[in-house]
């Protein structure tokens, strides 16, 4: 990729080839829950987050919206929700929720995001990993190895840590951190 110009090295970005176009066409993006960018944007379900049912109901009524209309507006914005799911949120039967869904409901009913959110009652292994000092250190090393912002590296490692949860397993926190350590070491060795 290097070239010389007037005795100095200058950059040359690669040309686009037919092979590149077909690689792009055939590429399968990561699943939403494994996508670091989706995680940064709050599109991935956070096991530690729930709707505060009574707060949602109060805000919806204050906004003058029937429940089916709220659901319809969410569907128009690309959310796959049903009337019964939304009823469950208001009746205190909310399962884990993506932060961006809470943001969407907050937008529609004109409330603040934080006023509609509640913490999950259970211990969440991914949250425990995420808040540990070891995890923060691993993220710093990964950000350096990948030359990406800290938040991007954090989302990448959170996705890696969350995979056993989404697949139905409950990761041991120490074992998960050890797996992340191996991952970061691999990233660092690639950069050397």
């Amino acid at each position: 990729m290097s070239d010389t110009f007037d005795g100095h090295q200058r950059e040359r970005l690669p040309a686009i080839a037919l092979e590149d176009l077909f690689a792009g066409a055939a590429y399968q993006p990561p699943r939403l829950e494994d996508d670091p960018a989706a995680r940064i944007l709050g599109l991935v379900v956070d096991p530690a987050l729930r709707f505060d049912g009574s707060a949602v109901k109060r805000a919806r009524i204050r906004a003058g919206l029937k429940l089916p209309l709220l659901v319809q507006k969410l569907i128009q914005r690309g959310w796959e929700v049903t009337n019964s799911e939304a009823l469950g949120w208001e009746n205190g039967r909310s399962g884990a929720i993506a932060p961006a869904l809470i943001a969407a409901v907050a937008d529609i009913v004109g409330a603040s995001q934080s006023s509609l959110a509640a913490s999950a009652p259970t211990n969440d292994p991914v949250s425990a990993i995420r808040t540990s000092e070891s995890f923060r250190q691993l993220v710093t090393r990964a950000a350096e190895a990948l030359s990406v912002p800290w938040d991007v590296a954090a989302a990448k490692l959170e996705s890696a840590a969350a995979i056993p949860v989404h697949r139905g397993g409950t990761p041991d926190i120490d074992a998960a951190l050890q797996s992340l350590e191996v991952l970061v070491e691999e990233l660092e060795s690639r950069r050397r």
Partner: protein
Amino acid sequence: MTSYNAALAEAFREHRDVLYRIAVARLRGAGLQGDAQDVVSTAVLSLMDHPVAAVTNWRALLIDVVEKKVVDHLRSAWSRRRDGREPKPDDVKDDRFDIADAEDEIDVLKAIQVATDALNALPEPHQTIARECLWHERKQNEVATALGISQPRVSQVLKEAKNMIASKIEESGVTR
């Protein structure tokens, strides 16, 4: 009233396939297609840190920012390689059929669509050979064995197929 971050999140969910395709296509020439997730994430973070006022076309904005981040990433990688901090990856093929110089403006997304349509419209045996070699990235000798023909014949047909697809791309005006 939709808040900026909520609109960004919903637009990203709708268009993320396209963003990844563009990133992979643009990074592959430098052997960096494996960095597509990092580049797309960096683009998203940039849009969160520096909100754009009165967005009328989220798709166009997302594509624009991803393309800029791809260029930043390529330049950063070039700089690291120049300084000897990072070796050149060995998976960059030399038999690339270039359709646009780096300096050319190219609508990568449209080029991908035109190339795919052109491949699907190729006569046989060109279509099968092009699909195996370009889409599935199989080696010419593997395709030759599977089809019961010689590798030079596969090479010849593939070259003809690439020329036909490249002509369609040129006719479509996606490069300027």
